[in-house]
């Protein structure tokens, strides 16, 4: 005889079909950027240690974020060997003291590494496979010169897939000058001088600084020190001063150390979260990701990559370039920024572009630069509630560009993000 019980039989959990969620930018920080030379700040500091300091600072700034809630750590580097090898996202997580349960991986799209770490893990957040991620990048160019030890397939050259010179980034910048003769060396130099000046002003105003993580640096000769400020900017740069610099990529060329980003060591990182999770944990929402895109161009003019990438990202978002109120564009080379601005009919000195200066002043530690752009845009959003949309964009070696469009949560018409009760 069977007796009917009051307790219902356990039912299998209803299979849940998740809706797409909004991804928000919670916090971005970086190390001071150092000169990638034997006398640079980080000459005796490991790349992975730079990244560890960044991850720990992110957690320190957000005690409300339980570390075990982090679902992924994606860390980019262009040259993944030595102290940038061994699956950075995992090694850095362990070294930073994240719980063992937090997974991690390494990622590479050359200069857009950290940007790709953001877009890739953001995709996971949007589709519900992660709630919170850490995305970032590190490049110790002093220890790992770009392309070092790479074994380039001879077919690139034998089948003329890519001009052999296209692997030299400086040469691709000269190519852009060729392609757009009206983007002259004088304009490039003027842009570069402006970048230095804008950086200096931002530093003086405290717009650069709050995002920096001090890093203890050891020197066998000098003892321990502390890196607290960017090492590379030359605030007193004048057009006259850089006019006659050498053109190392071509005799009589236009690209010089004055109008290009210097070789740099540094690391960046950010916390991304689903909108509803940020709300649940009380995490600040500094930006909402609107759309992103990567696009390829001829490797010989890789600096033009941001244009097709931005076109795509705008199309994804249903926006036009006129909707964008702030631009954070990576300054690998002045001419590459100019080609972007020129394409969209934006003035060389448009105040919406790189208000804190750019990589020409602060430096460009390849795979880490993407998150620097985002961190700066987030701060500008706070200062400009009248701006609704901004973009972060950069060119990538071997002919790519990447763009991420962000919405300003401080704007009056902010569209909102997925909230804890499932509402937008």
């Amino acid at each position, binding site marked *: 005889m069977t007796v009917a019980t009051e307790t219902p039989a356990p039912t299998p959990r209803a299979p849940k079909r998740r809706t797409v969620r909004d991804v928000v930018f919670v916090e971005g920080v970086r190390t001071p950027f150092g000169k990638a030379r034997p006398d640079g700040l980080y000459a005796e500091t490991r790349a992975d240690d730079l990244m560890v300091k960044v991850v720990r600072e992110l957690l320190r700034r957000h005690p409300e974020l339980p570390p075990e809630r982090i679902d992924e750590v994606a860390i980019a580097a262009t040259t993944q060997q030595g102290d940038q090898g061994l699956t950075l996202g995992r090694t850095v997580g362990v070294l930073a003291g994240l719980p063992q349960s937090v997974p991690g991986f390494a990622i590479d799209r050359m200069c857009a590494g950290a940007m790709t770490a953001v877009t890739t893990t953001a995709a996971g957040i949007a589709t519900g496979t992660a709630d919170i991620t850490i995305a970032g990048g590190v490049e110790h160019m002093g220890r790992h010169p770009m392309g070092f030890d790479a074994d380039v397939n001879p077919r690139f050259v034998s089948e003329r897939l890519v001009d052999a010179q296209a692997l030299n980034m400086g040469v691709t910048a000269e190519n852009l000058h060729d392609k757009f003769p009206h983007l002259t060396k004088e304009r490039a130099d003027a842009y570069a001088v402006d970048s230095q000046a804008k950086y200096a002003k931002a530093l003086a105003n405290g717009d650069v600084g709050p995002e920096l*993580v001090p890093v203890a640096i050891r020197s066998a000769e000098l003892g321990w*020190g502390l890196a607290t400020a960017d090492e590379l900017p030359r605030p007193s740069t004048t057009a006259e001063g850089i006019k006659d610099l050498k053109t190392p990529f071509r005799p009589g060329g236009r690209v010089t150390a004055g109008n290009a980003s210097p070789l740099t060591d540094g690391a960046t990182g950010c916390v991304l979260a689903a909108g509803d999770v940020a709300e649940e944990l009380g995490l600040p929402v500094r930006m909402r990701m609107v759309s992103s895109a990567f696009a390829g161009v001829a490797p010989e003019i890789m600096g033009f990559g941001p244009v097709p990438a931005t076109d795509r990202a705008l199309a994804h978002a249903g926006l036009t370039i006129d909707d964008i109120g702030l631009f954070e564009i990576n300054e690998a080379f002045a001419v590459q920024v100019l080609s972007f601005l020129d394409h969209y009919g934006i003035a060389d000195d448009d105040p919406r572009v790189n208000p804190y200066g750019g990589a020409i002043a602060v430096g460009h530690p390849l795979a880490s630069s993407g998150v620097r752009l985002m961190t700066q845009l987030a701060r500008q959003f706070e200062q400009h509630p009248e701006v609704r949309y901004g973009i972060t964009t950069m060119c990538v070696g071997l002919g790519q560009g990447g763009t991420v469009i962000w919405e300003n949560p401080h704007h009056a018409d902010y569209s909102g993000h997925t909230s804890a009760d499932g509402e937008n």
Partner: protein
Amino acid sequence: MTDTSARAERVTHALVRDVALPGGAGTLALITLDNGLDHTKPNTFGPQGMAELLTTLEGVRERAAAGELAAVAVTGKPYFLAAGADLLGVAQVTSYDEALELGRMGHRAYSVLGDLREQTGVPTFAFVNGLALGGGLEVALNCDYRTVASDAAALGLPETGLGLVPGWGGAYLVPRLVGIEKAVDVLLARPAAQKPYKPAEALEIGLVDALFEAADFLEQSIAWAAKVVAGQVEVPRRELDPQPVWDAVVAATRQRLDATIHGSRPAPYRALDLLAAARTATRDEAFGAEDVALADLIMTDEMRASVYAFGLVSGGKKPAGAPDPKIARPVTRVGIVGAGLMAAQIALLFAQRLQVPVVMRDLDQERVDKGLGFVRDTVTKLVSRGRMSQDVAARIVASVHGTTDIQDFASCDFVIEAVTEVMGLKKKVFAELEGIVTPETILATNTSALSITEMARDLQHPERVVGIHFFNPVAQMPLVEVVHAEKTSPEALATAFAVTKKLRKTAVLAADRPGFVVNRLLILVMGKVVESIENGTAAEVADTALSPLGFPMPTFELFDLVGPAVGLHVLTSLREDLGERIPVSKGLEKIVAEGTKVVLDGPKGLPKPVNPAVQDAFGPARPGEPGVLDADGVLDSVRTALATEIGLMLDEGVVAGPEQIDLCMILGAGWGFHTGGITPYLDRTGYSERVLGRRFLPDGVANVPAGTRVG
């Protein structure tokens, strides 16, 4: 010509660099101590390094006075703040004035850190990034504030264990920071137990003010310093303990010292004297007293013997006489004959450290189960105390197999026997094994008293037999005697050394002579004490007659630990092999036969008194009668016997030299650093020359050389 045998000072440099304190709190002058060498060579301080530090600090003081600095901090090269004074340098001091200057130079430099805030308003910090011992910790103690990294290997003031006192401010500063009671732990108890502080412990008692995780220790320390400078963080300091508390702790400590080390070495007493005076002395008086105590002690034989002993036990040295490690055979499966207590302890150690399968075999299942039970219970205990992970425990338990079938040894490449100490039985075991294992399999024996040459004599392959003598308790005792029998091959010997190295034991090569090293001397000493009682000395008097040597415990407590039956067995077998100079004792035989407990229980940590029943076993004492020794007489007879026996051992080639004897006695019997093991003590008391007509060690190696002005 100058003597170039003395090592030049490894100079620790004091590098200084400006750091911007966060939050605009000003400039921190950050001093890094760095000898420029790799992590195997810690920072240490000698005269040149200390002079350099002083110069650096004076420069910093000038800048502080000029208002350029908001703070000063000291840290070290990776993994080390500093390991203290350069001991080898200290032991080479040849005059009292030089010794006095050693203390003064430290105070001169460190006092700049201690005085800076009062003189200029600029606070000083120590960021203890790694190991900080002795003078290394005292750098930090002289600063106003201290942080420590979570991975700092050790913090402590081990000086009293090395015949010194903390003489660069430690004796005065520690009781003020942590209170007199904890200061006694820091200066005396921990050094005696050779147990420095872990960072969390140091924080708990107040030796340091803040602990930061290693991953960004320096950054967080600097940020913390900025908060201290800005007044956002306040570090409370304790009041001085009241005088009665201070006096009571000092008095109780003095009693305890008398009860445990009986004046056998001066350093702990000098440290206690400094602590006693530290409450009321001015800082200058206290530092002056430290200088004098340090100088006095540097010029003692006890201190020189301690440095010699420290050098012997400091790891990483290749054992004297060991063959090329490359010819050692691989050990992939270990057999253990027997499953008794010794066998089970050995099985556990092999499974734990060699990480290979271990087969333990005994005659019946009950004994086998008991042996396996020991292994299981021990790892369970270690897991419950947090000393071993579950997974490691599971691996160990799974890798130790029990059997009653000797055939299970067939695939072992290394078999060690730990069966009852009966020659016939051991020979039978080895003969049986030879029919089962391959000709290359190493056969080791853990015998403590039998001839290994004899044990191997009838084998087809006697060259594979080697002695590996463990001490009880196997897990704790750091020494193993590796014994070379007549036919032992270099391969077998190399394998034995390789195995003991993996077991993390210190191996000493000994010839196959009765009792090898430790038992021969230890049992001889016990035999001489018992002999004196046999001849009429009161048991109570004889038991403590050796206290001037500062042994770890009185003779009968040692008997109790070893087991009187075992002691008697070894004594008897030594007498059979070595002759009548090894005493015989009817009284001891009676004690063993009747199972008399030889000591009474006493308070933990204090010596146990001899049981009056022991006297009964020997018959009444006859103090004062002719031929009956008093305490001094017993001590004299023991010293004489030791000098005689060690002379014979060296003649017999039991070990390569007196250093190996000393190493064995320190690690195998716990004899003190202040005796240098034993030969420095016999040299400095004149017994080696009196008995043998020669010293064991050259003058000056482990003593203050003759002709040195010591006061």
